[in-house]
């Protein structure tokens, strides 16, 4: 039962991985990318979680309280920043590609390009 989060995180990770590789639609690829990254964040949260732990902010009361590990949360925050910027850049590119080709399907784009040549 303890490992449920790890197992779930891996299942979600592989789902995202599969979406990214198998779909030709670029928007779906980007969604898969985000699913994959969320799975990693879930995995990191699960690593840092301590049973019955509180948010790791030092309060002057109650010295015997247990805290969750703050480091994974800090890492996730950085990871989220990274994933937001990658997503934004990818979406920007997709918008521009859509303007040129009128489609967001990679196979379609490849076909159109090979006809042009």
């Amino acid at each position: 039962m303890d490992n449920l989060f790890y197992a779930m995180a891996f299942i979600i990770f592989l789902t995202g991985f599969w979406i990214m590789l198998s779909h030709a639609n670029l928007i779906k690829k980007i969604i898969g990318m985000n699913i994959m990254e969320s799975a990693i964040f879930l995995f990191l949260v699960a690593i840092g979680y301590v049973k019955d732990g509180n948010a790791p902010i030092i309060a002057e009361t109650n010295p015997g309280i247990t805290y969750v590990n703050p480091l994974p949360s800090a890492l996730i925050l950085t990871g989220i920043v990274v994933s937001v910027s990658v997503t934004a850049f990818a979406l920007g590119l997709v918008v521009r590609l859509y303007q040129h080709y009128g489609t967001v399907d990679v196979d379609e784009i490849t076909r159109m390009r090979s006809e042009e040549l």
Partner: protein
Amino acid sequence: MIRAHIMPLTVLLPLVGAYFILLVGSKHRSLARNVALVTTGATFAMVCFITYLVSNQGTLFYHLGGWAPPLGIELQADPITAFLLLTFAGVSFFVILFAYDILPDEINSKVITRYYALYLVLLGALLGIVLSNDFFNMYVFLEISSIAAAALVAVNGDKLAMEASIKYLVMSTLGSGTVLMGIAGLYMVTGYLNLDYLAGALPQAYASYPLTVLMTLAMLTVGIAVKAALFPLHVWLPDAHGSAPTSSSAILSGLVVKVYIAVLLKLLYRVFPLDFLTTLPLQGSLLVMATLGIFIGSIMAIRQKDIKKMLAYSTVAQIGYVFLGIGLFSEKAMTGAILHVFNHAVMKSMLFLSVGLLIKYSGKRTIADLAGLGRVYPIPMIAFSVGALSMVGIPPLSGFISKWYLGLGALEANHLPFLLVLLLSSLLNGFYYMPIVIAGFFKKETVEIQTHKVPMGAQISLIVLIGATFFFGLFSNIVVDFLAPTVQGLFEVFGGGI
């Protein structure tokens, strides 16, 4: 003051330069390229100073914010790191110098300030990856570098480049997602992110969670291999490097692919104990993939008509050499791999820059159209020829030295078939490079050629790169002596067994 804080300042300088360009560049366009030139030049000078310090004082450490590891982020510079830093900062300075007069013609004037800013961000990220001794910090820099690199491909907004860029971005995000999962796994079993502490804690972690550690190693290696374009994960590289603007191709093919190799070196040689690695099928698969990469990359390069695509496929082959050197697990091969990172960075950027110049002046990008250009544009064509000969491995040039050390490494590790691989692949390299060189000088031109004056900056930077190819071919012992103690150290620490 600079002496003690040289490492963070070296990483910061390009990043500050990038934001400075964004701040002032939109009003003063011409300022952007001067700032970029000065910043890369100053970074190069600082990296030289780091190298000097390392050669005098040994390995340097720096704790960000005064927090000692395992809590804080640590930067570390040993001779191998310093050598890689020197490669990255040096080549990117000469690429910027080359592009000083050429880039404004090649890049849309609306985005040129942003181009320089991205270039500097990329340089800062590369230096950060090499210097960082903390896995998560390295991951953040990896992501910065992959976004900046994908943006440098797409910057001009033409269709092919943007398509290549999104392909590159998707593949490299797959790779970095896998790397991050691996890092999370390492943190889970050991509780550390600092490389030295990880190395200390791993044997015990392996005893308790063998499967998790193995899976982590697999994820990290595969993730890095995607980003470094190890065959069969190279599919994104030819398009991305072939369709980017000249200076982007040069720095992407020369440097960005290499930095992942620096990460792999740190991972395989500093974190995981070597006697543990030798019990896994890792060595076999690395060597097989490297060999296949060398051959298939070369064969694909022979089939190309577009010269930039050909150079890009040649990068796939050359990455194979570096992985070969890493996978042989021997001192000489390791030296060869590190030397090849440097040599390939110099040669490939020189090839891309000279080809870019020739394409710009002739207006054609197929191989057949380069015929006869050597008589009109001697310096670019000589640079191309020197790079090509060095790629093939002709003795006084630096490409020979790295192949020589790889060969010695294959002997040392008792993997004789790889000598044959090296010989055959050199022959293949000759197949696709030599006809261009010969045609460039001795054939009659197929297209009408207008003569343009080659800008001063471009000439200087090509001549310096040619000089570097000769210098490091003739005096390679300087570098080898500089690297030898550290390379030996890598093998002693882990060869001694834990």
